[in-house]
């Protein structure tokens, strides 16, 4: 199945800011030295950038005075001073860019490392979570936490850290420099800042209203597209194209009607900022000129002031932008940490079990995925070493759950499961699992080579052992026929081999792992007759001399089992051998009869 586009969920609950900040700071703590260095570099780089315009202003004044002197024939431009000033400016700029580079590079190292660590921790978490936390319906969500959220957190850290530090330093520095030039001009410029700030905020809030509105229409339109494209056959076969088109058009128009307004209002920030900066420019030009006339400042100071107001407006824009990025990053960090804070699967015991001597015993086992909803009720049965147990029952009866309990994927609510008389809860979970081989219908393989997939059963197995395992399950033939033989790579959806072939590979994998206990889920459908026979033979081979639990569908398997357990609603309703159950003339007998009649 190809991946569906991940739907970004809007944050359902408001972000707990304090906790998010605490978590992010916790991440930064390990990189204290680098971060301090980053800040130092930022300070140096910014300070140097801030000082330069003053000197440029002085240089301009030198030229202006020189020109005045030339006009009044009292002298000329003082080229030495000019050269001197400009040399210092060049040095300042060069140093500033070096430190600016150092600063951003250090920071990227930190943020990349943080996201590297986070990903590592999350994968580790996934591998150690209890099963119910990684069930199918949660995969998409977990995946987006590992990828998207880590990404936005990294971006958030890098961007906000760089921009916030430089923005703040710049604001303070520029403010001081402007003050040294002229208090009134500074005041006039600075007073516009909070006004701009408030206007932008109001504007953002206003556009937010439209943004949320259009989001609703967007959702319904996208849902319609999704539905139509998935149900395309029906649309065509039932001549629904026009109706579908009409519905689409009305939704499309509706979305557009709100969407462009949302776009328009949110894009008004640009004109607003442009206006503020232009306005400041005029104020500086006029006031500056007036002060020059009063001999309060020099001509060059106007130029310096232009540059300062420019670098005063930029940080404000940056801060507004960064704020939204920080919001995203905080929401992301909340989702990441919520995931990392899940409890690991409990595995208190280190006692390991390496072999089975007598048998397995289920004693009054009860279990439910949700409290008060028992899937397995008071289940008791014995399996002696080397026996084959067939478990049968309708879908949803609890067959798979029984074997999952044995694998300790879930903990039972009451009763006990014993191996050789000892409760399996006394053992290390991993050692129990190492004892059991599992072949499920839903055969999971990697997008790796065929031989590596088989080798997954025993990582130390050599090539000959791998080939031998494949041969035993009749997979050797088709493997050799595929393009690169054992080195053929299964693609991401592993759909370049058939379902039946996949099952053969999982059986080969389990054969190679040489487990004492086996859990097998027989194929029911969607495999062609020939392959089905092969799978059957392979499974028989696998089970030779092993203690096996088979979730069985096939009469021949059931007939050959040492014992048959019939499950209904989580309870054993009948158990015994084929003959015993037939003699019982109960559920087993009746269903089998009905089935035979139906087919003949």
């Amino acid at each position, binding site marked *: 199945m190809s991946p569906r586009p991940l739907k970004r969920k809007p944050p359902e609950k408001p972000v707990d800011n304090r906790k998010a900040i605490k978590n992010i700071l916790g991440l930064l703590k390990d990189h204290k030295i680098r971060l301090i260095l980053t800040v130092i570099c930022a300070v140096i780089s910014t300070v140097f950038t801030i000082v330069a315009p003053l000197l440029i202003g002085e*240089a301009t004044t030198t030229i202006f005075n020189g020109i005045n002197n030339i006009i009044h024939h009292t002298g000329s431009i003082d080229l030495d001073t*000019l050269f001197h000033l400009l040399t210092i400016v060049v040095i300042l700029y060069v140093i500033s860019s070096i430190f*600016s*580079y150092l600063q951003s590079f250090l920071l990227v190292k930190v943020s990349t490392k943080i996201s590297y660590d986070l990903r590592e921790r999350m994968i580790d978490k996934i591998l150690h979570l209890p099963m119910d936390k990684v069930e199918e319906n949660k995969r998409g969500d977990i995946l987006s936490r590992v990828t998207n959220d880590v990404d936005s957190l990294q971006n958030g850290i890098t961007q906000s850290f760089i921009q916030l530090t430089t923005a703040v330093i710049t604001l303070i520095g520029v403010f001081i420099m402007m003050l040294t030039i002229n208090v009134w001009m500074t005041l006039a410029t600075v007073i516009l800042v909070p006004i701009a700030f408030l206007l932008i905020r109001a504007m953002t809030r206003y556009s937010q209203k439209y943004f949320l509105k259009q989001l609703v229409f967007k959702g319904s339109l996208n849902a319609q597209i999704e539905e139509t494209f998935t149900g395309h056959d029906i649309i065509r*076969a039932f001549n629904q194209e026009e109706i579908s088109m009409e519905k689409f058009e009305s939704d499309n128009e509706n979305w557009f009607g709100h969407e462009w307004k949302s776009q328009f209002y949110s894009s008004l920030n640009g004109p607003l900022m442009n206006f503020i900066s*232009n306005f400041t420019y005029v104020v500086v030009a006029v006031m500056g000129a007036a002060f020059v006339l009063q001999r309060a400042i020099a001509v060059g100071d106007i130029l310096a002031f232009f540059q300062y107001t420019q670098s005063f407006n930029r940080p404000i824009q940056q801060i507004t932008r960064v704020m939204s990025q920080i919001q995203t990053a905080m929401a992301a960090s909340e989702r990441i940490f919520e995931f990392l804070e899940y409890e690991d699967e409990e595995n208190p015991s280190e006692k390991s079990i390496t072999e089975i001597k007598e048998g397995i015993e289920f004693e009054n086992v009860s279990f439910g995925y949700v409290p008060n909803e028992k899937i397995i009720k008071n289940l008791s049965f014995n399996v002696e070493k080397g026996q084959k147990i067939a478990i*049968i029952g309708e879908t949803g009866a609890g067959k798979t759950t029984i074997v999952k309990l044995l694998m300790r994927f879930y903990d039972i609510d009451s009763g006990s499961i014993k191996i050789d008389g000892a409760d399996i809860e006394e053992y290390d979970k991993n050692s129990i699992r190492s004892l059991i081989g599992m072949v499920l219908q839903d055969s999971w393989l990697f997008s790796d080579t065929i031989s590596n997939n088989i080798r997954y059963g025993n990582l130390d197995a050599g090539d000959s052992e791998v080939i031998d395992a494949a041969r035993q399950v009749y997979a050797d033939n088709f493997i050799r026929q595929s393009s690169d033989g054992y080195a053929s790579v299964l693609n991401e959806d592993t759909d370049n081999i058939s379902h039946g072939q996949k099952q053969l590979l999982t059986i080969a994998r389990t054969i190679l792992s040489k487990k004492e206990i086996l859990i097998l889920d027989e194929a*029911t*459908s969607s495999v062609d*007759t020939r392959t089905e026979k092969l799978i059957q033979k392979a499974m028989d081979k696998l089970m030779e001399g092993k203690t096996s639990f088979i979730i069985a569908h096939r009469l021949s398997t059931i007939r050959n089992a040492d014992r048959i357990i019939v499950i209904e609603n989580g309870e054993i309703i009948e158990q015994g051998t084929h003959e015993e159950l037939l003699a019982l003339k109960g559920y087993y007998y009746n269903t089998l009869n009905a089935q035979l009649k139906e087919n003949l």
Partner: protein
Amino acid sequence: MKKLLKPMKNKIPQIFFIFIFLSIQVYCDLTLPQYTAEIVNVGIQNTNFQFIIDIGIMMLLMVAISALATVAVSYFSSRVASGYAKDLRKIIYEKVLKFSNHELNHISRSSLITRSTNDVNQLQSVLGMIFMTLIFAPLLGIGSIIKVFELQTNLSWIILVNFIAVVLLLIIVIIKVLPYFKITQEIIDRINKTTREILIGIPVIKAFVRQDYEADKFQKVNQEFYDVNIYVFKTLLIMLPLMTLIMNLMVVLILYYGAYDALSGGLLTGDIIAFIQYSTQIVTSFLMIGAFMIILPRILVSGRRVSEVLNTEITITDGDLKEISSNSTIEFKNVSYRYPGSEKETLKDINFTLKPGKTTAIIGGTGSGKSTILNLIPRLQDPSSGEILIDGKNIKNFNLKTLRDKISFTPQKAILFQGDVKSNMKIGKSDASDEDIEKALELAQVDFVEDLAEEVTQGGSNFSGGQKQRLSIARAIIGTHDFYLFDDCFSALDMNTERRIKENLKNLKDSSILIVSQRISTIMDADEILVIDNGEIVDRGNHNKLIESCEIYREIVNIQIDSMEALS
């Protein structure tokens, strides 16, 4: 790519307005440094305070006009971008509705969804940027250059030097980093893939106790990603400080050489100040275009994905015949089907006839081509050779709507649409009354719907597989048609329900029925059973005849008797 521009056509007047208003904005903004120069050169030099105030008022006027112009630009560009996206979506949707299975499978449905949603959004967001870079930046650049020449200095060469420096820097960085963008994307894909694989494989990983092994595997990809990232940023981050440095050095150069110019009497201080500001604008506008070039490939990806949809050729053509007699027959004559690009034929030389009042069944393994046969009848796709005849004429000659009206089709995968039970039933018969609907529901054994207004969520996800199948059968039988095609749509039903539905289907006795199934019990009482293997009809006849004569049929029967499917 040409098709992508089509929705732009009716927006040309609006784009023209954008151009006009941007020109006004640029013109006004660019007068400011000139006015400053006048303030310095005339006002200050001659200590003329009134002149300064006059100029100031002129400047404020310019600022106000510029502000209004920018609002207008915002207005028009929002409308154009949103409208473009709207029209593009419509064109795509219209086009996709005409797709046959062949086109659908070629691009894949999930990809079509992404293309008409995400990719269109991508293009829309880029559009605003295009206005800024392709209209605003050149206007700003050209305007500034004109202003620079008006100043009549000898300093223009400094701008040229800078220009070259910036271009060189851009080129070097692009050459060094661009290949790595692709690599980064590949590694991100690998990280996603590995994560997904681990998520899906958790039961197996735990069963084999391979947690450490998987962690190591992931660590390798993660490390690679880290290394590439550091490399890319190491180079990329040089750009910003160097650009700033180049810009700043330009200012220094202008001052230094401007002073020499002033010495020879050619230049005043105000001119130098204006010159600095104009040259900064020129470089800025160039940088904007440069930045655009860098993100251009990413835009092109979305553009290419969308235009691929628009350029897809529709293989199903409509016919003009609008009359089909009632009680008609459908005949397959040497029909073969081969997926484009595939060497093997999915269907080979299929011949059979659907007659009124008769039930025909198709049985065969997965991938034997059963569903393809059904899809050919309502022309969801066309055969690669051979003919399908209705009333003795090729179905391609008939109007699609007329043809499909004659046919009721139930696909393998039961698909319902958002709405309620009623709206879903009306898909089968647009003028169905509540009684009609209730009757159909009853015939299809839908005993779980209490109210026709019961909600159906997207894709019908609030119903189980078996329930969806029953609803889709009800939808199929609500209207009266000459041909009923059922594609393995009883698979999620238990034997008893299936038997009852089949009993009810006998009501359709005047029509032709075609049932595809893998279950013997579903098809055994059909008038004719076609046994398909590898795309060929290997045998045909009724159940009793096939049991005698057909090995494959016998094998299927035996396996199914040997299975306990009734239990599951």
